[in-house]
């Protein structure tokens, strides 16, 4: 399939923006200037100023001489870039593949998009009128290559639509500047009397290169589609993406739900064909005012169950503010994993325990975040705090057995707490200990169980653990840190037995 590109040229990008901010400037000549080597140089001029001959590159003093009432604004160096980016995002409703063409243009890859708007002419008209009614003076053209589209959008006189295969005809009457060349080359061409592309295009390539450099040949090849031009997309295209343009802006939750369900159905059908399931999904709504509303979900297992995914999204639909209405909905699946047919059928019938559990966990994760859900597996460490670790997934199986040979308390304090004890030396359990101001008289005790510090992980003293029972029948896990040597060792309580 042949590719089609649209380039949009914002003829007065910066001044249009200023005019939008300050409507009273409409139709008045004004310029944007920047301080450069002690003088002010114009970087952008409004249409009215341009009509009076005041243009880019002039010095403000000269321009003031022509027009004393000229208004001058300081340049915001980031403004053009930011504006272009925002406009590019707005244009995402027309095609997913958009690149910024600094300083004042956008490139849209519209291959296969135009038919949705009933052909290229209505499509282009729609884009241009929408942008013009938003207050931007734009010219746009559509062609097989970026080069030709750019040329026609900037210098074309006849039609903004270059029919497929008619690149050469469109280019011939245009000036050499339409090929995006540098100023010195253009001046040289002008000097030689090459005012139009048709006056030099038939010259031998060797001659052209010798006289004007490789750039001219490259630009010609790009314009004629002989070499590929690579553009950097503002948003990489998601492989699994579905979009739903709406005839009228959607403003109600019911409308959003219907859109979501339709998109999910289409996406899940596609996933089913390709034996995939999604792990994460993003649902976006493009609002009329250019704002993008989005909600995201994640799942614990790959899934393509419409009902389940819908439920996950449903929890978050209320966070979308449609304001004046949403024009286009997009559903993306950034993370996709293989999911076989068998797993799928299990999932739908609910025969497996796992499916129900995974569905529940997805809902919990959707509201509480993935961090709230934890599952543990044994880890081969004696040190109590390290004897278990977080499981990576719902299915992960333990590699080792849980140990049963030593008593472990059912409740473990997150940090051992200091206690005061009376204990006979050298290795007897304490006779009593004071914890939180309460004296516990030890009646029965087990121990010691010495647990050495894992020296390859951290330094410190070993622990001698005792399980003790007080006169109330409560059982505690306490330990002594280190030996009895020159200093008195500290005692800690680390847990409570059942």
């Amino acid at each position, binding site marked *: 399939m042949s590719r089609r590109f649209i380039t949009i040229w914002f003829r007065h990008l910066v001044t249009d923006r200023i005019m939008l901010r300050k409507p009273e400037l409409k139709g008045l000549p004004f310029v944007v200037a920047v301080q450069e080597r002690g003088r002010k140089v114009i970087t952008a001029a409004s249409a009215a100023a341009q009509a009076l001959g005041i243009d880019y590159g002039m010095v403000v003093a000269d321009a003031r001489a022509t027009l004393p009432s000229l208004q001058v604004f300081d340049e915001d160096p980031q403004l053009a870039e930011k504006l272009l980016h925002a406009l590019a995002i707005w244009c995402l409703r027309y095609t997913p593949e958009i690149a910024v063409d600094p300083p004042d243009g956008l490139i849209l890859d519209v291959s296969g998009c135009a038919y949705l708007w009933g052909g290229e002419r209505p499509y282009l008209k729609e884009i241009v009128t929408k942008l013009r009614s938003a207050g931007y003076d734009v010219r746009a053209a559509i062609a097989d290559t970026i080069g030709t589209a750019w040329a026609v959008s900037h210098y074309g006189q006849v039609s903004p639509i270059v029919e497929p295969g008619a690149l050469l005809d469109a280019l011939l009457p245009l000036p050499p500047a339409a090929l995006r060349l540098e100023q010195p080359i253009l001046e040289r061409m002008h000097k030689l009397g090459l005012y139009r592309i048709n006056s030099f295009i038939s010259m031998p390539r060797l001659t052209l290169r010798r006289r004007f450099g490789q750039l001219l040949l490259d630009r010609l090849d790009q314009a004629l589609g002989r070499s590929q031009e690579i553009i950097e997309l503002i948003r990489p295209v998601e492989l699994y993406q579905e979009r739903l343009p709406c005839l009228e802006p959607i403003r109600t939750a019911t409308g959003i739900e219907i859109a979501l369900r339709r998109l999910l159905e289409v996406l899940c059908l596609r996933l089913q064909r390709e034996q995939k399931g999604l792990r994460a999904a993003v649902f976006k709504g493009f609002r009329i005012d250019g704002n993008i509303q989005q909600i995201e979900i994640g799942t614990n297992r790959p899934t393509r169950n419409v009902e389940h995914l819908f439920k996950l999204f449903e929890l978050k639909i209320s966070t979308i503010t449609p304001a004046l209405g949403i024009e286009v909905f997009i559903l993306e699946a950034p993370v996709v994993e293989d999911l076989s047919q068998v797993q799928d059928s299990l999932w739908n019938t*609910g025969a*497996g*325990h*796992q*499916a*129900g*559990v995974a*569905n*529940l*966990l997805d*809902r*919990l994760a959707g*509201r*509480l975040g993935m961090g*709230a*859900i*934890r*599952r*543990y*597996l*044994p880890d081969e460490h004696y040190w*109590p705090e390290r*004897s*278990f670790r977080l*499981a990576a997934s719902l299915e992960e*199986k*333990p590699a080792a057995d*849980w*140990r*049963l040979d030593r*008593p*472990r*308390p*059912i*409740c*473990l*304090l*997150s940090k051992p707490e200091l206690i005061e004890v009376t204990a006979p030396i050298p290795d007897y359990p304490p006779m009593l200990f004071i914890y939180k101001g309460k004296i516990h008289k030890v*009646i*029965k*005790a*087990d121990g010691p169980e010495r647990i050495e510090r894992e020296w390859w992980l951290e330094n410190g003293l070993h622990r001698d653990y005792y*399980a*003790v*029972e007080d006169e*109330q*029948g*409560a*059982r505690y896990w306490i330990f002594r840190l280190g030996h009895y040597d020159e200093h008195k060792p500290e005692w800690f309580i680390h*847990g*409570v*037995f*059942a």
Partner: protein
Amino acid sequence: MIAAADKIELIRGLQQQILSLQGMKGPLEGVQFNFGLGPLERAFPGNTFPTGAIHEFLSNTPEDAAATTGFMAGLAGRLMQQGDGVCLWISANRAVFPPALKMFGIDPERVIFIDITRKKDLLWAVEEALKCESMAVVVGELKETGFTESRRLQLAVEQSRVTGLMHHFSPRNITATASVCRWVVKPVAGEQEAGLPGVGSPCWNVTLQKVRNGKPGTWLIAWSAGRFRNVKRDAVAAPDHQLPKTA
């Protein structure tokens, strides 16, 4: 004229109906849990531990909480033995040490811990979990629940037949509840064979404060060799409550 045997049969059937209307549906067909609680099980209607119901546990001190957790873990372990049941452990302030659950017959890797700080989310999560039929048991560590909340939870399990064990640690006030049972578990001196030193196996003073259609009471239950065991000990001080003791 109906024969006497028929009458008894009829009345038993009607009692069963009333029980099921009151939320004691009993286990699903063919599913039998043996908790091994001995005489304690006679306190329940039909002499069976009510599954598919909400059980409340109250505790005030960390020691009681640990004993309660142990007792709950023992119950949960029994409930999880059926098939490859999964347990959800939902809490705001989790103190339980996962490797120790193994001792109470639970494979710790089959327990999914959910940690939530907001009370509203906590209640929502517990309710959602109780509604999920694939759960074997749901353990919720909630500070307290009001009557409305406990009724919501009880209604959820009546649909799904999931057993819910709700542990209320130091509740500010104890309200009426829609739960089927209310328990208080306190630790008592461990069980050890005569003459042997050491702490021995865990032993609890288990009080059934409330049980719908049953007989409340107090029992001494020990956990040894991976199962509950009823202990007969003469002089046991049952602290903090004035309930009649049954054998």
